[in-house]
C-alpha cells in the first residue's frame, strides 16, 4: 500500500488498519455540513458503529460575524465542552470521516489546532469502511461524558495558520493555493492565487488518489519542497484537505481559515482581487 498517503503519514488511516487494531479508546466522528436536519437523518440511518454526529457549524466552527468568513474557528471552551460530552480524554484516538474527505479534514485540522495529537482522517469514509467489512449502526450513539478530572487541556495554535491582515501583505515568494472548484475560482480569487481544486485529490468513490497522482497535481500547481505555501478555499473546509495532503507530503502550509468568504467582505481587498488576477 505504499502508493497511499496513509502508508507514511499517520494522520490518514485506512479502514483495514483500524479493523486490525481494535481500540476501545477510539472515537469516530461523522462530520457533516449540509442542511442540519437532513444530515442528522442521514447519520441516523447509517454511521460507523460508535460514531457521533458533528455538524461543522456547531462543532468545528463558531458563528460567523459580519466581518468573518463563513466558518471561523470555534471557541476553545465550546469545543472542549463538546469533546467532553463525547467522553474524549487525552488517551482518545479520534477518527474523522464524512460524506467527503474535506469535511473530515476540517475536523482534523481544528482538533490538531486545538492541541489533540491522536487525530486521523479515515480514507474513503463510510463507504470504504463498509467495503472492508466494518460494522455500522442505525440511530444515535450514546457516550459517557469525560469525568471532570479527565485531562483534555485544549490550547490553540498548534497548526500553522495565517490571518487576513497577513494574507493582504503576502509577497511573490509565497505560493497561494485556491482549493475551490473552477467556477468559484474564476468568479474571483485572492491576488496571484493558483487554482488547485481539492476535489481532484479524491476519486469518485471518495478515496484519496495515489501518492504520485497527488504529487503531480501539486507539481503542476507550482508546489516546491521547502517553499512557503498558503491555502484557502471558501470557508476553510476544502483547503483543510489540501493542508492534510500537503502535510503528508512533507510540506508545511499555512491555512487561511477565513478564506474567500472573509476576503470578499472588504471592498479594498475585492478591488485588489479584480486588479491582480493571476494570468491564465
Amino acid at each position, binding site marked *: 500500500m505504499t502508493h497511499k498517503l496513509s502508508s507514511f503519514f499517520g494522520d490518514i488511516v485506512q479502514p483495514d488498519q483500524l479493523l486490525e487494531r481494535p481500540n476501545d479508546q477510539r472515537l469516530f466522528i461523522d462530520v457533516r455540513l449540509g442542511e442540519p436536519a437532513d444530515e442528522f437523518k442521514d447519520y441516523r*440511518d447509517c454511521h460507523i*458503529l460508535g460514531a457521533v454526529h458533528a455538524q461543522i457549524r456547531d462543532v468545528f466552527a463558531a458563528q460567523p460575524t459580519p466581518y468573518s468568513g463563513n466558518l471561523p474557528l470555534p471557541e476553545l471552551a465550546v469545543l472542549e465542552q463538546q469533546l467532553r460530552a463525547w467522553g474524549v480524554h487525552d488517551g482518545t484516538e479520534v477518527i474523522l470521516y464524512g460524506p467527503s474527505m474535506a469535511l473530515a479534514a476540517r475536523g482534523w485540522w481544528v482538533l490538531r489546532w486545538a492541541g489533540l495529537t491522536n487525530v486521523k482522517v479515515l480514507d474513503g469514509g463510510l463507504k470504504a469502511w*463498509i467495503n472492508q467489512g*466494518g*460494522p*455500522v*449502526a*442505525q*440511530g444515535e450513539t*450514546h457516550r459517557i461524558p469525560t469525568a471532570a478530572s479527565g485531562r483534555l487541556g485544549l490550547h490553540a495554535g498548534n497548526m500553522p495558520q495565517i490571518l487576513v491582515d497577513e494574507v493582504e501583505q503576502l509577497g511573490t515568494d509565497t505560493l497561494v493555493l485556491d482549493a475551490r472548484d473552477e467556477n468559484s475560482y474564476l468568479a474571483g480569487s485572492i491576488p496571484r492565487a493558483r487554482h488547485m481544486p481539492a476535489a481532484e485529490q479524491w476519486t469518485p468513490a471518495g478515496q484519496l488518489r495515489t501518492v504520485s497522482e497527488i504529487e503531480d497535481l501539486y507539481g503542476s500547481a507550482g508546489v516546491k519542497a521547502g517553499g512557503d505555501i498558503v491555502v484557502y478555499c471558501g470557508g476553510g473546509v476544502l483547503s483543510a484537505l489540501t493542508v492534510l495532503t500537503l502535510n503528508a507530503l512533507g510540506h508545511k502550509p499555512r491555512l487561511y481559515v477565513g478564506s474567500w468568504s472573509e476576503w470578499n467582505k472588504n471592498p479594498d481587498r475585492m478591488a485588489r482581487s479584480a486588479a491582480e488576477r493571476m494570468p491564465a
Partner: protein
Amino acid sequence: MTERSMNHAADHFDTVVCGGGPVGLSMAFLLGRAGLRVAMFEKRPTTTTLPKGQYLHASTGEFFRQWGVWDLLHDAGWETEDANGQGFYVNVANGPVAAIRAIEGTHEEYVKKWEAYSPVFPRKVPASDYEAAIRRRAEAWPNASLHFNARVTDVEQRDDDVRLTVEDMQSHTVKEVTARYVVACDGAHSFIRSRLGRGQDHGPTFGNQVLVEFRADLDDTLGRDGFFHSFVLNPRYAGWFGSKHPESGLWRYSFRHDEETPPVHEVVLERIRGALGMPGLPVEIFQTYRFDYSTGLLRHWRERNVLFAGDAAHWHSPWGGFGMNSGIQDANNLAWKLELVLKGKAGDSLLDTYEQERKSKARITVKSATYNSLHYQAIAEAARVGEGELFAQGKISAEAQLFLSQRAVPHGDNAVLHTGYQLGTLYRSQAVISNDEVPPVPGLVEYVETTVPGVRAPHAWLQDAKGRRSSTVDLWGRRFVLIGHDIQAHWMAAAENAARAMKIELPVINVAKNGTYRPLDAKFEMLYETRHGDVILVRPDGFVAAKLRAADLESATGQLQEALQSILGVTVRSASPMAEALA
C-alpha cells in the same frame, strides 16, 4: 424483609421484554406460560393499529394453534379468495394483464392441500387482530405483566442482571426495574440496540413510500379479481393496491413519493383514480402514512444478559411478509432456552445457540425480502420499456403481456406462499445432535418433509385416546418430548431415568395402534421411524433435537442423557445407582 428489599423484589423480573409488537407479545406469552416473572414494556398506548404485517405463515399459525391464539382468530382476516397472489394492471378498470396466484381452487381445496403439511394454513390477518389475540393470551398469566405507554429510556448491564429505566408516557414518572435477562424486541429502530449493539451490516433502503387508506366501491373490479397486491404498471401511477380490509372495508394504495411531506389531497385523489382508470369514481381518503424500509442484520444477537429478537436483530422490506413471522420464530426459539437457563436446568451456553440457529435463518430472510422488493420493481420497470404510447390508452402490447406472464411463471404459487421458507428451516448448533443423515437443502419454494435433526418436527395427523384428531405439532411447546412409532419399552424407562437425572419433564409419546396416540395415516410411521427402533427427541420449540437408537435400557438411558446434557450444556451424575455408589 426490609422495605427496601421489598421494593427491589417488586421491580425485579426474571426477564424484561422491551417492545410490545408481535415478537415482544409472543415472548411475554411464552415466558409467562413457563411460569417466569416477566414484564413487557411498550411505548405505544396499545397494540398496533397500522395496516401492516398481514401475512401469517403456517409455521407461525402452528404456534398460534399451540398458544390458543389461532382459535381467537377464527373469524379474523381476509377470505382466502379475496387475498390471492399478485396481479399486474395497466389500470385497474381494464383488468389484469398478468397474475401470480398463490392459490388455485376454492378455500376448501386450499385448506385440504395444506393439511398434508400442517394442521393450519397460511392466512392473511391484520396485525391489529393477531397482536390483540396474543396480548389476550399473554395477559392471562398472572406472572406476566404487560405495560403499554411505557418507554425504556436507559439500560445498563450489571454483573448479574440488567437495570432499566422505564418512563410512564402518561404520568411521566420514571422507575427503575432490574431483570436477570432482557429481550430486546423493540423493532428496526431498537433503542436497546443503539445502546448495547456491537455493529450491524446494512442493505438497500426503500425510502419515501406513501400508503393511503381510502374508501371506494371497488368490489366489482379489484375485489372481483381478488389479488392481495395489485401492481399498476402505468408509470404515471406506478404503485400497488392492497386488498380491502376485512373489517374496516378500507382499500390501500401505495407509491413512492420523493418529498418530505405526503402529496396534497387532490394529488392523491387524482393518482388513485388514475391508477384505477376510473376518473369519476367517488373516493374518500382516510389516512396517509409515510414509510422508509431499511435493511440490516445485527452482528451480535447477545450482549451478555441482553438478547435481540425480531426486527431489532434483522430488519428489511415487507415484501414476502417475513418480518413478523421470522420474529415470532425467534421468540419461540429463545423462550424455552431462557426458561431452562433461568430454572437452572441448562447452562448459559444454551443461550448462545439462539443466535447460531436464528441468525442463519435471518440471513436468508434479509436476502429474500430484498430480492422480493427489487424483483417486483425489476419486472414492472422492464415491462414498461417501449410502452409509452400504449399507456396513454390504458393498455400494453402483446409482447409486454407475454413478457410479464413469462416472468410470472418461475414465481408461481409456491413463490408467493414460500412454503420452503415457512416450513423448511434447519438449525445447526450445540442444541441439535446431528447424525449421518443429510438434511434437505433449505429453499424458499420447496419444502421436503423430514426428521433429520435440526428441522421442524413435521406434522402428521394422529388420533388421541378420546378419538379426537390432533397433529404432532400440538404435542410440542412446553417441554422436550420423546416420540416414536411403536416405541420399545426400554425407551419409556430410559426417558424416566433421564428426566429424573436432568430434573426436567420428558413425556414419551408412543404412536402405535394400541398407543396413547394412533396414526391416522402412513405418514407418521414413514417420517418418524426412518429405521425400526428409532425414537425422536423433539425440543420444546418443535424442532428435532436428536434421533436415537438403542437396543437396551442402559444404552437408551446413556444416549438420551448424553444428548440432553449436550443440548442443555450441563453435566449431571449418572442416574444409575451403581455409578452413584461408585462415585
